[in-house]
């Protein structure tokens, strides 16, 4: 299999693409392929990783024009899977020379500044968590609170978010509007608002409904399709908008 990998030594924009021949084996992931390049062909290739098990959220990138976790994407299955996202420029502008049939195209996650090769600047993404104050105010108590299984079920899908920013990179609104806090932060705000244990649910809803939040969402639902953890931020945002 051939990997066509976007390169950017100084960051800012993709300067060119390098082509590598990967020795693939059954069960190999895109991340394994990138390590093969770094280990044997090109030690300068930069990409983030940590858990290799789809739980740490480090390795989001654009794979064949779809935002995915490199460690959870099987090389042999890439060509058969399609997220069917609503198109916007980073998902449609293909580099010249890319042979879709024989090459896997690997590019940095869209909508965040490129720092080097496949590494993007996540500052904006993290900052929205702080701006919206997405934490619980701690209670002083000797006892845990009660929460029924049904009450927990309400927040279950939202607490599963691994902060990989795939939703952010798949969203046409984030592409057009630098201000938009993006789907993950809003889903997290909804998680706190809906948590039966929260003492001040209004604060999260209010933060999420500020002008750079839920009102900007066009309910495109790319985030729902692309999220690797089934978080479905779009559903939360729809409810936040009401």
């Amino acid at each position: 299999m051939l990997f066509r990998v976007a390169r950017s030594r100084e960051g800012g924009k993709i300067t060119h693409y390098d082509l590598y021949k990967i020795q693939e084996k059954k069960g190999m992931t895109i991340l394994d392929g990138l390590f093969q390049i770094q280990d044997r062909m090109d030690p300068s290739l930069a990409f983030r990783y940590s858990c290799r098990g789809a739980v740490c959220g480090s390795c989001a990138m654009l794979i064949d024009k779809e935002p995915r976790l490199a460690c959870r994407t099987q090389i042999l299955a890439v060509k058969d899977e399609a997220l069917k996202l609503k198109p916007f420029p980073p998902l449609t502008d293909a580099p010249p020379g890319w042979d879709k049939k024989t090459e896997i195209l690997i590019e940095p996650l869209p909508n965040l500044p490129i720092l080097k090769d496949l590494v993007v600047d996540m500052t904006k993404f993290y900052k929205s968590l702080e701006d919206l104050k997405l934490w619980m105010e701690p209670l002083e108590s000797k006892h845990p609170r009660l929460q029924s299984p049904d009450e927990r079920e309400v927040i279950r899908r939202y607490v599963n978010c691994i902060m990989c920013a795939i939703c952010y990179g798949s969203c046409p609104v984030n592409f057009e509007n630098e201000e938009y806090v993006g789907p993950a932060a809003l889903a997290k705000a909804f998680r706190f608002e809906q948590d039966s244990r929260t003492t001040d649910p209004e604060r999260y809803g209010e933060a999420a409904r500020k002008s750079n939040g839920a009102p900007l969402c066009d309910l495109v639902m790319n985030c729902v399709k692309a999220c690797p953890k089934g978080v479905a931020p779009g559903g939360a945002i729809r409810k936040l908008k009401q």
Partner: protein
Amino acid sequence: MYIYSEEEKNRVIYDHDALIIGAGLSGLRVAIELAQKHDVAILTKVQALRSHSVAAQGGINAALREDDSWEMHAFDTVKGSDYLADQDAVEILTQEAPRAVIENELWGTAFSRTPTGNIAQRPFGGAGYPRTCYAADRTGHNLLHTTFEQAMRLGIKFYDEFFATSLVRDDNRIVGVTALEISSGAVHGFTAKAVVVATGGFGRVYARSTNALINTGDGCALALRVGVPLKDMEFVQFHPTTLYGSSILITEGARGEGGHLLNAKGKRFMGKYAPDKMELAPRDIVARAIRTEVLEGRGFEGRYVHLDLTHLGKDRIMERLPGIREICVHFAGIDPIDEPIPVLPGQHYSMGGIDCDKYGNTTLPGLFAVGEAACMSVHGANRLGGNSLLETLVFGRVVGQKVIEYLGSAKSPSKQVVDDEAYRIREKLQTMTIKEQGESLHELRTKLTEAMDDYVGVFRNANDIKKALKVIREVRIGFENLALGEMDQRFNYSLIRALELENMIDLAESIAQGALMRKESRGAHWRVDYPNRNDEKFLKHSLATLTPEGIKISYKDVNLGRFEVKERMY
């Protein structure tokens, strides 16, 4: 190539009262304790949420119910440790456990619940009571995100993607740290009165490990190099059930929920090894049982056995083990609702670590250790599942309090010493990146980690361990002649991986030396040539120190206590 500008060479050093290396659960918890009183910062090679704590699945132990008690929890822990744990430290761990779990619940962690709304608890290997609290099979994820939220709330300063390159010692105290800023390639000095090492485990010393790729034990190696001993390094836990191929963990929770282990003859074999506890016997026993089945020819493809969940049914699997199902589908193409999971033992947890007491004090004043990087020791020769997440939160708080005490009387450190050390590291990195021809990083790493798998694994003997030590020496020599290839200064991950390998060489040697010298079998350390436990000689912690001739091993006493040393039977 690394060429530093004048400005970089004269960089002002950063200064904090306390500097924590590591943003996993233990580092975050220490920082939270310190934040209100002191100027504290966390330095971490990956952003906090990418720390390995996020991957913990099964749960966290605490005696929450009335018919359970901290004493019962302590007994299980000490027995599980094969009596090598320090009982004074275990008392703190188990007494403080409910507080740690409740604190995280109050911070917002979404624990799974019983029908009446209490925190749900499941049975876990080696425990006499179902006391493992969990958040589905994503317990570490939930605890880490929640604890990080609280660190954000307190406005704690993070140096994200800074790789610690050395600890700085001035005479008989710690004065700071040097670190490589991954985004720029610059080396910075940090002065601090107190430094806390919370860099996690070193599973990647082995080729087949459930650990994150970043778990290379950097902090332990840095401590060793400033003269601080490592303790009980030979005790490496192998998890009995890792997914064949990628070594991703299949939680013990899968057996807790009723999963069966089957050999290639389709027989449930645990009855032969642990008739009472069956699949829920402690990890070392289950790991050896699986290895024995495979070695005696009853494995599939001569490699693995089956973990069968199919009888649990779709609903139970979807509700209790959704993460496991996802892993099987995405990393092995198998749906455990329909088919058994191929599993085999793999490296999982590092019981050993930086030698410290129950307050995190190391032998170097001002240097503290906590979490998986530390060895207090609460796990002894074998950790019980659910006790290490607990260790991070309980001792994060305890160590934080001790750091506060220490800061009360500590003097300001010398900037000059830190500056000189930063200069030395810059020169070292320049030399490392300048070479164009030489050994390959990838080959050296593979050679080292495969030797550890093959010769210092589940079953050990003197001959094999000596083979490992020979390979380690060869890799050490090879490393001197390492050529990284054409290099950038910014985001140079090959350089990072080379520094990690350098650290792993020292740790591998400590593990192998410790294993060679410990001529007995205890907990996770199983010597085929010495199959019995020998309390007379080895009811002792081993200490590894770095000398010009390599790693040297000495011993010190275990803190015994209320529980009498007995044979460990399940």
